[in-house]
């Protein structure tokens, strides 16, 4: 299936060597700490307030007798390099939210504008309700599909005032809809938890949500709930990579004053 046309001494594409080193190094670190985690090594993790607030948000909905809304933003199809992984991370978090909703009997509405993610969403909800012993409460009607960004936004806006959800989860790959949903959600007094790795939308979710998962936290959210050794191990690996980068930056920064660019060249390899 794969054919190589040219034989050359160099096998790595020019300028991508360091990227490969970083990838391999990260993977090794992730693996080592995942292994240690499974062996029972304790890895402390900073609690993520947004995750801790999920039960609070759902409890609030139960008290008020109103639904809970979840949406991953317009994002992109699962094969989209930047949006796809965010959608998947959001669906993982949705699994937890759904279980909490099933426990408390709160109605959950999911607005999912991504057709390729529909099967995963359905499967996740079904499993969550099953795990709580209430499979009969799950129905595919909980998932609302709307094609394209702006119509999806209008549908969510209409839903907000018609159904008045008590809690909104805006977690995933957001674009311009973030600020509108965040503010419109605020206007109906909803408690809101946001999350995205799309830098251009972070300011708006920070401004309009009560809690917010920023960048990496979106992917790591699972750890603070499940204490899954795999996720914790990866987190430790990520932290060590961050320290390595910080060390490189400190050294490079100091070398910069002497105008020694050896590190710049090495990183560009």
């Amino acid at each position, binding site marked *: 299936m794969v054919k190589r046309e040219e034989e050359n001494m160099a096998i790595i594409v020019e300028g*991508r060597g*360091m*990227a*490969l080193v*970083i*990838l391999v190094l990260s993977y090794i670190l992730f693996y080592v700490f995942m292994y240690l985690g499974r062996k029972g090594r304790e*890895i*402390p*993790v*900073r609690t993520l307030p947004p995750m801790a607030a999920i039960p609070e948000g759902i409890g609030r909905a139960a008290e008020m007798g109103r639904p809970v809304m979840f949406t991953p933003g317009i994002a992109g*199809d*699962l*094969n989209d*390099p*930047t949006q*796809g*992984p965010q959608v998947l991370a959001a669906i993982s978090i949705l699994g937890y939210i759904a279980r909490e909703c099933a426990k408390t009997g709160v109605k959950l509405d999911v607005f999912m504008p991504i*057709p*390729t993610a529909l*099967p*995963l969403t*359905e*499967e996740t909800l079904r499993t969550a309700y099953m795990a709580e012993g209430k499979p009969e409460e799950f129905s595919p009607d909980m998932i609302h599909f*709307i*094609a*394209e960004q*702006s*119509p999806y936004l*209008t549908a969510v*806006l*209409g839903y*907000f*005032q018609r159904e008045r959800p008590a809690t909104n989860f805006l977690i995933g790959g957001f674009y311009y809809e973030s600020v509108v949903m965040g503010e419109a959600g605020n206007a109906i007094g909803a408690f809101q938890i946001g999350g995205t790795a799309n*830098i*251009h939308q*972070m*300011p708006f979710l*920070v*401004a309009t949500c009560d809690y917010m998962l920023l*960048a*990496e*936290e979106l992917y790591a959210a699972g750890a603070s709930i499940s204490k899954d050794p795999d996720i914790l191990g990866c*987190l430790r690996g*990520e*932290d060590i990579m*961050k320290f390595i*980068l*910080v060390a*490189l*930056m400190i050294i*490079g*920064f100091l*070398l*910069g004053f002497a*105008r020694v*660019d050896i*590190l*710049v060249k090495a*990183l*560009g390899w």
Partner: protein
Amino acid sequence: MPYPTDPAGIAGLWVAWLLMLMIYSYPLYKENLAFRFAEHTYIGITLGVSLIVAMSNVIRIAIVPMLQGKYHYIIPIILGFMMYSLLVPRYRWVSRYPIAILVGAGFGLGMRGVLIPNITQQVISTITPPATGAGAVDWWNYIYIAIGTICAVMYFVLTWEHRGGLGYATRLGRWIIMIGLGAYFGNTVLFRMAMLSGRAQFFLQVLKIVPM
């Protein structure tokens, strides 16, 4: 767009104008029948447009090449239709196969795509000193960006407690992040207001208060 002269154009213009007001009745007043009408109009039309576009994409990317001899394109077409197994409870799991390819492609492209622009290039830009002949201001910016980036990255250390030295660094990091978010927010205001002013202008244009 010039002010239309044909009846269909004039009707279109007024329909567009009314639909705009129906949508804006939501922020300016509250959810109401007019908004609901515009909402459902939009969802219905867009679903039609998207399906037509998706269909022509499939014809262009898959069917035409297949008819020209790339017979293996029948595979992704079958995989695509495997997604519809979701509608048949017994065979729901079949939809996982096409999804596995999408997820794999997304992760593969995503992970390889972040290494250079998000990691190495960001470090390189952080440690590249200002050009020769740079003034004090340039050096100050160099120091600010380097220290700021380092502290902000430290803020995201999740498996160590933020105490001692790390505590100071992360607090500074948090401030730096807030400055970034504030500046980004402020910059977006320009774009959004330009768009909204376009609608305000359209409101007047249709009424012929200002020329089109």
